[in-house]
């Protein structure tokens, strides 16, 4: 295990005390892309900050490549690359200089630093912007520079905190490609996100976190399969009484695994059975069926099933 988090707790003093991380245990395998998925304030950033030596835990420990990061922060930083939520590029330096100096901080000779910087600019398609200042870059480009800089000293693990927050869809896809490319270089990636598409698309394994606790941890496919349904029907009802009485009548239908109430109607978890949809519609019709949405299970569904809330609340 390249990253091992054991019984991690972080309590911020205050009135009342805030428990940001509440006993997290996690293991990340070498070479995988691991996602921490959860809503804002779930404890993702705090967990990442402790892993990257920028915050101290109240208890528990984090091992990276076998090294305790709390006990040996300065040494561990050699194995860690970080891209925080906000842009921390050196505004007084160009893109080239940002990466070059980063290499020097990590003990590269000038010649090695120059070679490594050129190589990274090439890899991240930044060569043309080498002389630009960080202020002149778009959000997506700045994020790519930050990743290039974070891996410049060849760390074993790269931590990305909400990497695509604030990026437009195109930049997000370019970012995902860049992150996937890191795998081929053997870099383990740990990222936090509150975009379920990002976790689903990019991560080999995902841990869902809420209120400082890990709720579940598995591959996106296994997590979605755990919902136990091939299709989800969202029924929007005119008659609010139907929300209460409809689930019982739907629950007896063949191929329906679960029915639950929502704010505007009911949600039906269904197996792919022929004729089931028309059956559901017929049953719901007397209750003033206004609208029907059919979706496949997503990580969002998993989160809702676990917490009763939506991810983006």
């Amino acid at each position: 295990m390249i990253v091992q988090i054991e019984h991690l707790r972080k309590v911020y003093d205050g009135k009342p005390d805030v428990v940001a991380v509440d006993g997290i245990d996690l293991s990340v395998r070498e070479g995988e892309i691991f996602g921490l998925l959860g809503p804002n304030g779930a404890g993702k950033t705090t967990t990442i900050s402790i892993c990257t030596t920028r915050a101290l835990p109240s208890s528990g420990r984090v091992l990276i490549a076998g090294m305790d990061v709390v006990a040996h922060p300065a040494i561990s930083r050699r194995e860690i690359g970080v891209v925080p939520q906000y842009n921390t590029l050196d505004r007084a330096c160009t893109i080239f200089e940002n990466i070059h100096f980063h290499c020097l901080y990590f003990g590269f000779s000038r010649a090695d630093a120059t070679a490594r910087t050129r190589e990274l600019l090439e890899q991240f398609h930044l060569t043309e912007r080498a002389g630009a200042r960080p202020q002149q870059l778009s959000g997506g480009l700045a994020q790519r520079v930050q990743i290039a800089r974070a891996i410049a000293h060849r760390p074993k693990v790269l931590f990305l905190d909400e990497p695509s927050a604030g990026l437009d869809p195109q930049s997000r896809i370019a970012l995902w490609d860049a992150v996937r490319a890191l795998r081929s270089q053997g870099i383990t990636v740990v990222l936090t996100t509150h975009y379920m598409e990002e976790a689903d698309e990019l991560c080999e394994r995902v841990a869902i976190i809420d209120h400082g606790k890990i709720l579940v941890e598995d591959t996106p496919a296994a997590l979605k399969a755990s919902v136990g349904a091939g299709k989800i029907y969202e029924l929007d009802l005119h008659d609010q009484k139907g929300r209460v009485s409809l689930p019982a009548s739907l629950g007896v239908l063949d191929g329906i695994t679960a029915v639950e109430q929502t704010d505007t109607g009911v949600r039906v978890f269904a197996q792919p059975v022929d004729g089931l949809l028309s059956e559901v519609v017929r049953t719901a019709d007397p209750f003033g069926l206004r609208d029907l949405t059919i979706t496949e299970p997503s990580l969002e569904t998993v989160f809702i099933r676990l917490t009763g809330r939506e991810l983006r609340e």
Partner: protein
Amino acid sequence: MATAVLTTSSSVTRQQQYVRAFAGLFLRDLFVLRRELLPFVIRVCMNPLLFLFVFTVIMPHMGSAAMNPTASMAGANFSTILLPGLMAVAIMFSGIAAVALPLAQEFGVTREIDDRVMCPLPVAAVAVEKIVFSALQSMIAAAIVFPMAYYVPATPVVAHVSSWPFLLTVMVLSSLVSGALGLTIGTSVKPQQIGLIFGVVVMPITFLGCVYYPWSALTHMRWLQIGVLLNPIVYMSEGLRGALTTGLPHMNNALVLIMLCVFLVLLTSLGIRGFLRRVIG
């Protein structure tokens, strides 16, 4: 077990790692300073140049004693009094400008500091690098001010170096103290309040720092003479007087060195503590 083996085997290279990271940070700062040398020189020059021009050129040319307050205050010696004083101000201002202002910005807006903290060396060393680099800027600033304060005044300046080792020691200590002061201010003040600090801290310690008058001249205002002993700028200007303008009254040299060391230790530990508090959650 693996951890223990790893740390022992890398204990020699660990020192090298720290030294290289420190050198890297210093090189980066030097590189940025070199690129922004002109604004730096202008910033350093403007304040003392205007001060010298008004008090040692314009006023002596006003003729009558009534119109020339500096003549009655310290006679022709005023330019000589100002030389070490203005150097001390330049040293102190550089500490504020090189550490406190950028830090306030980095904590408040850019968060660039978060990246510097990820360098492979103890976080306290990142803070020490800021002090050391600021000290270098202070020394350059003092070296720029010296010829100005020597040649600009209309009245002759009497200055000569009595002891080079003492001068250098005072310069180095003063510069480090000003960097440590900058670190303490930059880490203890909210970014939005950094402007206020200029009025509340920087201006008073300058005006009450025995910059424009020697400390011994305060003898008729005993309360003030004792009060200003808490001000580190006093020891910078008095120390430079002891090194450069020995003809004028100045504090005991040994006392100056001791007090500069005391302030260095105090402000450095306060500054590092503040820095750690701000960057490590």
